[in-house]
Protein backbone atom coordinates (compact mmCIF):
# COMPACT_ATOMS: atom_id res chain seq x y z
CA UNK A 1 0.00 0.00 0.00
CA UNK A 2 1.37 3.36 -1.08
CA UNK A 3 -0.53 6.56 -0.31
CA UNK A 4 0.74 9.66 -2.09
CA UNK A 5 -0.31 13.07 -3.36
CA UNK A 6 -1.49 13.52 -6.92
CA UNK A 7 0.65 15.31 -9.47
CA UNK A 8 -1.85 18.20 -9.73
CA UNK A 9 -1.80 18.62 -5.95
CA UNK A 10 -5.49 17.90 -5.24
CA UNK A 11 -6.63 14.68 -3.61
CA UNK A 12 -4.74 11.47 -3.09
CA UNK A 13 -3.30 8.55 -5.06
CA UNK A 14 -3.42 4.99 -3.71
CA UNK A 15 -1.37 2.07 -4.95
CA UNK A 16 -2.60 -1.26 -3.59
CA UNK A 17 -1.31 -4.78 -3.98
CA UNK A 18 -3.92 -7.00 -5.62
CA UNK A 19 -4.46 -8.83 -2.32
CA UNK A 20 -5.02 -5.51 -0.49
CA UNK A 21 -7.53 -4.40 -3.11
CA UNK A 22 -9.39 -7.71 -2.81
CA UNK A 23 -9.45 -7.45 0.98
CA UNK A 24 -10.73 -3.87 0.85
CA UNK A 25 -13.38 -4.81 -1.69
CA UNK A 26 -14.57 -7.66 0.51
CA UNK A 27 -14.64 -5.46 3.63
CA UNK A 28 -16.55 -2.72 1.76
CA UNK A 29 -19.09 -5.31 0.66
CA UNK A 30 -19.50 -6.40 4.29
CA UNK A 31 -20.04 -2.80 5.46
CA UNK A 32 -22.67 -2.41 2.75
CA UNK A 33 -24.35 -5.64 3.94
CA UNK A 34 -24.45 -4.49 7.58
CA UNK A 35 -26.18 -1.29 6.44
CA UNK A 36 -28.50 -3.08 4.01
CA UNK A 37 -29.65 -5.80 6.39
CA UNK A 38 -29.87 -3.26 9.20
CA UNK A 39 -30.92 -5.60 11.98
CA UNK A 40 -32.14 -3.45 14.84
CA UNK A 41 -30.32 -5.44 17.51
CA UNK A 42 -26.94 -5.24 15.71
CA UNK A 43 -24.74 -3.14 18.03
CA UNK A 44 -22.45 -2.25 15.10
CA UNK A 45 -25.34 -0.45 13.46
CA UNK A 46 -25.77 1.55 16.65
CA UNK A 47 -22.17 2.77 16.22
CA UNK A 48 -22.88 3.87 12.64
CA UNK A 49 -26.21 5.48 13.48
CA UNK A 50 -25.89 6.79 17.04
CA UNK A 51 -28.76 7.97 19.21
CA UNK A 52 -29.01 11.76 18.80
CA UNK A 53 -31.16 12.15 21.94
CA UNK A 54 -30.08 9.54 24.52
CA UNK A 55 -32.28 11.13 27.18
CA UNK A 56 -35.39 11.77 25.11
CA UNK A 57 -36.94 8.68 23.56
CA UNK A 58 -39.61 10.51 21.51
CA UNK A 59 -37.13 13.02 20.07
CA UNK A 60 -34.71 10.19 19.39
CA UNK A 61 -37.30 8.27 17.36
CA UNK A 62 -38.32 11.42 15.50
CA UNK A 63 -34.69 12.19 14.61
CA UNK A 64 -34.15 8.63 13.45
CA UNK A 65 -37.26 8.73 11.28
CA UNK A 66 -36.06 11.85 9.47
CA UNK A 67 -32.36 11.06 9.14
CA UNK A 68 -31.85 7.31 9.00
CA UNK A 69 -32.58 6.65 5.33
CA UNK A 70 -30.35 9.43 4.11
CA UNK A 71 -27.51 8.45 6.48
CA UNK A 72 -27.77 4.80 5.43
CA UNK A 73 -27.82 5.80 1.74
CA UNK A 74 -24.74 7.99 2.12
CA UNK A 75 -22.80 5.32 3.99
CA UNK A 76 -23.83 2.57 1.56
CA UNK A 77 -22.82 4.70 -1.42
CA UNK A 78 -19.40 5.34 0.12
CA UNK A 79 -18.93 1.61 0.77
CA UNK A 80 -20.11 0.67 -2.72
CA UNK A 81 -17.73 3.15 -4.36
CA UNK A 82 -14.78 1.68 -2.45
CA UNK A 83 -15.96 -1.84 -3.31
CA UNK A 84 -16.30 -1.00 -7.01
CA UNK A 85 -12.97 0.84 -7.19
CA UNK A 86 -11.14 -2.13 -5.67
CA UNK A 87 -13.08 -4.99 -7.29
CA UNK A 88 -11.93 -7.33 -10.07
CA UNK A 89 -8.29 -6.45 -10.53
CA UNK A 90 -7.11 -10.04 -10.64
CA UNK A 91 -3.73 -10.60 -12.20
CA UNK A 92 -2.87 -6.94 -12.67
CA UNK A 93 -0.14 -6.79 -10.03
CA UNK A 94 -0.99 -3.47 -8.41
CA UNK A 95 -4.17 -1.42 -8.35
CA UNK A 96 -3.82 2.34 -8.77
CA UNK A 97 -6.65 4.57 -7.59
CA UNK A 98 -6.81 8.34 -7.97
CA UNK A 99 -9.24 10.23 -5.74
CA UNK A 100 -10.13 13.91 -5.79
CA UNK A 101 -10.89 15.57 -2.45
CA UNK A 102 -14.59 14.74 -2.55
CA UNK A 103 -13.96 11.10 -3.47
CA UNK A 104 -11.31 10.92 -0.75
CA UNK A 105 -13.94 12.01 1.80
CA UNK A 106 -16.03 9.01 0.78
CA UNK A 107 -13.07 6.75 1.51
CA UNK A 108 -12.33 8.44 4.84
CA UNK A 109 -15.92 8.04 6.03
CA UNK A 110 -16.07 4.46 4.76
CA UNK A 111 -12.85 3.60 6.64
CA UNK A 112 -14.36 5.15 9.78
CA UNK A 113 -17.55 3.09 9.44
CA UNK A 114 -15.50 -0.03 8.75
CA UNK A 115 -13.42 0.52 11.90
CA UNK A 116 -16.53 1.16 14.01
CA UNK A 117 -18.01 -2.15 12.84
CA UNK A 118 -14.77 -4.10 13.33
CA UNK A 119 -14.27 -2.62 16.83
CA UNK A 120 -17.78 -3.72 17.74
CA UNK A 121 -17.29 -7.20 16.29
CA UNK A 122 -13.99 -7.77 18.13
CA UNK A 123 -15.62 -6.56 21.36
CA UNK A 124 -18.51 -8.97 20.90
CA UNK A 125 -16.15 -11.86 20.25
CA UNK A 126 -14.12 -11.09 23.40
CA UNK A 127 -17.22 -11.53 25.53
CA UNK A 128 -18.08 -14.88 24.01
CA UNK A 129 -16.21 -18.09 23.35
CA UNK A 130 -12.76 -16.76 22.49
CA UNK A 131 -11.12 -20.13 21.88
CA UNK A 132 -13.03 -21.07 18.76
CA UNK A 133 -13.01 -17.55 17.34
CA UNK A 134 -9.34 -16.74 17.82
CA UNK A 135 -8.46 -16.82 14.13
CA UNK A 136 -11.40 -14.65 13.18
CA UNK A 137 -10.58 -12.27 16.03
CA UNK A 138 -6.99 -11.91 14.79
CA UNK A 139 -8.24 -11.28 11.28
CA UNK A 140 -10.66 -8.57 12.46
CA UNK A 141 -7.99 -6.92 14.59
CA UNK A 142 -5.52 -6.91 11.70
CA UNK A 143 -8.15 -5.43 9.39
CA UNK A 144 -8.99 -2.78 12.01
CA UNK A 145 -5.33 -1.75 12.38
CA UNK A 146 -4.80 -1.77 8.63
CA UNK A 147 -7.88 0.38 7.95
CA UNK A 148 -6.55 2.86 10.53
CA UNK A 149 -3.18 2.88 8.83
CA UNK A 150 -4.77 3.56 5.43
CA UNK A 151 -6.92 6.35 6.85
CA UNK A 152 -4.01 7.90 8.74
CA UNK A 153 -1.84 7.81 5.61
CA UNK A 154 -4.58 9.45 3.55
CA UNK A 155 -4.94 12.21 6.15
CA UNK A 156 -1.18 12.85 6.08
CA UNK A 157 -1.52 13.58 2.36
CA UNK A 158 -4.84 15.47 2.49
CA UNK A 159 -4.01 17.48 5.63
CA UNK A 160 -0.19 17.55 5.87
CA UNK A 161 0.38 20.04 8.72
CA UNK A 162 -1.70 18.36 11.42
CA UNK A 163 -0.11 14.98 10.91
Amino acid sequence: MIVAGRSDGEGVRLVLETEEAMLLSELADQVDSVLLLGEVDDPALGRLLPNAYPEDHAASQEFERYTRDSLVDGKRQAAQRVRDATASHEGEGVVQIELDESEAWGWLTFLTDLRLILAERVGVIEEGDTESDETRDDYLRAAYEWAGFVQGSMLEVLDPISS
Partner: protein
Amino acid sequence: MTSTLEELDLDTTTRVAAEVPWQTVVWDDPVNLMTYVSYVFRSYFGFARDEAERLMLCVHTEGRAIVATGNREAMERHVQAMHGYGLQATVSRAEP
Protein backbone atom coordinates in the same frame (compact mmCIF):
# COMPACT_ATOMS: atom_id res chain seq x y z
CA MET B 1 -30.15 33.48 -1.98
CA THR B 2 -32.12 35.49 0.54
CA SER B 3 -33.50 32.50 2.34
CA THR B 4 -30.03 30.94 2.56
CA LEU B 5 -28.63 34.08 4.17
CA GLU B 6 -31.48 34.17 6.65
CA GLU B 7 -30.87 30.55 7.49
CA LEU B 8 -27.18 31.18 8.05
CA ASP B 9 -28.04 34.05 10.38
CA LEU B 10 -30.04 31.68 12.56
CA ASP B 11 -27.01 29.42 12.80
CA THR B 12 -24.67 32.01 14.23
CA THR B 13 -23.54 31.53 17.77
CA THR B 14 -23.57 35.24 18.56
CA ARG B 15 -27.26 35.39 19.47
CA VAL B 16 -28.17 35.58 23.13
CA ALA B 17 -28.44 32.34 25.09
CA ALA B 18 -32.21 32.58 25.59
CA GLU B 19 -32.74 32.41 21.84
CA VAL B 20 -30.27 29.62 21.14
CA PRO B 21 -30.88 26.97 23.80
CA TRP B 22 -29.55 23.97 21.85
CA GLN B 23 -26.13 22.42 21.42
CA THR B 24 -24.31 19.96 19.22
CA VAL B 25 -22.15 17.72 21.42
CA VAL B 26 -19.45 15.42 20.01
CA TRP B 27 -18.43 12.51 22.27
CA ASP B 28 -15.13 10.70 22.55
CA ASP B 29 -14.81 7.45 20.66
CA PRO B 30 -11.57 5.47 20.94
CA VAL B 31 -12.00 4.25 17.36
CA ASN B 32 -11.65 7.57 15.55
CA LEU B 33 -8.21 8.97 14.74
CA MET B 34 -7.49 12.40 16.26
CA THR B 35 -6.30 13.70 12.89
CA TYR B 36 -9.61 12.62 11.34
CA VAL B 37 -11.77 14.32 13.98
CA SER B 38 -9.81 17.54 13.62
CA TYR B 39 -10.07 17.39 9.81
CA VAL B 40 -13.85 16.84 10.02
CA PHE B 41 -14.25 19.85 12.34
CA ARG B 42 -12.29 22.09 9.97
CA SER B 43 -13.92 20.86 6.80
CA TYR B 44 -17.51 20.78 8.00
CA PHE B 45 -17.72 23.70 10.45
CA GLY B 46 -15.03 25.77 8.74
CA PHE B 47 -13.09 26.18 11.99
CA ALA B 48 -9.55 27.53 11.88
CA ARG B 49 -6.91 24.86 12.49
CA ASP B 50 -6.27 25.99 16.10
CA GLU B 51 -9.96 25.93 17.02
CA ALA B 52 -10.48 22.52 15.41
CA GLU B 53 -7.47 21.13 17.30
CA ARG B 54 -8.70 22.63 20.58
CA LEU B 55 -12.16 21.07 20.20
CA MET B 56 -10.71 17.73 19.09
CA LEU B 57 -8.45 17.66 22.19
CA CYS B 58 -11.43 18.65 24.35
CA VAL B 59 -13.32 15.62 23.00
CA HIS B 60 -10.27 13.44 23.59
CA THR B 61 -9.43 14.57 27.14
CA GLU B 62 -12.81 15.70 28.55
CA GLY B 63 -14.84 13.01 26.79
CA ARG B 64 -17.02 15.54 24.96
CA ALA B 65 -17.07 18.98 23.39
CA ILE B 66 -19.78 21.45 22.45
CA VAL B 67 -18.99 22.19 18.83
CA ALA B 68 -22.01 24.34 17.96
CA THR B 69 -24.82 26.28 19.63
CA GLY B 70 -28.00 27.48 17.97
CA ASN B 71 -31.58 26.61 17.16
CA ARG B 72 -32.73 23.03 17.35
CA GLU B 73 -33.12 22.44 13.60
CA ALA B 74 -29.59 23.65 12.92
CA MET B 75 -28.19 21.44 15.70
CA GLU B 76 -30.02 18.42 14.27
CA ARG B 77 -28.50 19.12 10.86
CA HIS B 78 -25.03 19.26 12.45
CA VAL B 79 -25.59 16.03 14.39
CA GLN B 80 -26.81 14.27 11.25
CA ALA B 81 -23.68 15.45 9.43
CA MET B 82 -21.46 14.23 12.30
CA HIS B 83 -23.14 10.82 12.15
CA GLY B 84 -22.45 10.82 8.44
CA TYR B 85 -18.75 11.26 9.25
CA GLY B 86 -18.94 8.45 11.81
CA LEU B 87 -18.61 10.67 14.89
CA GLN B 88 -20.75 10.12 18.00
CA ALA B 89 -22.83 13.28 18.36
CA THR B 90 -25.96 14.29 20.27
CA VAL B 91 -28.38 17.22 20.44
CA SER B 92 -28.97 18.70 23.87
CA ARG B 93 -30.40 21.77 25.54
CA ALA B 94 -27.85 24.38 26.48
CA GLU B 95 -27.39 24.64 30.23
CA PRO B 96 -28.84 27.89 31.57
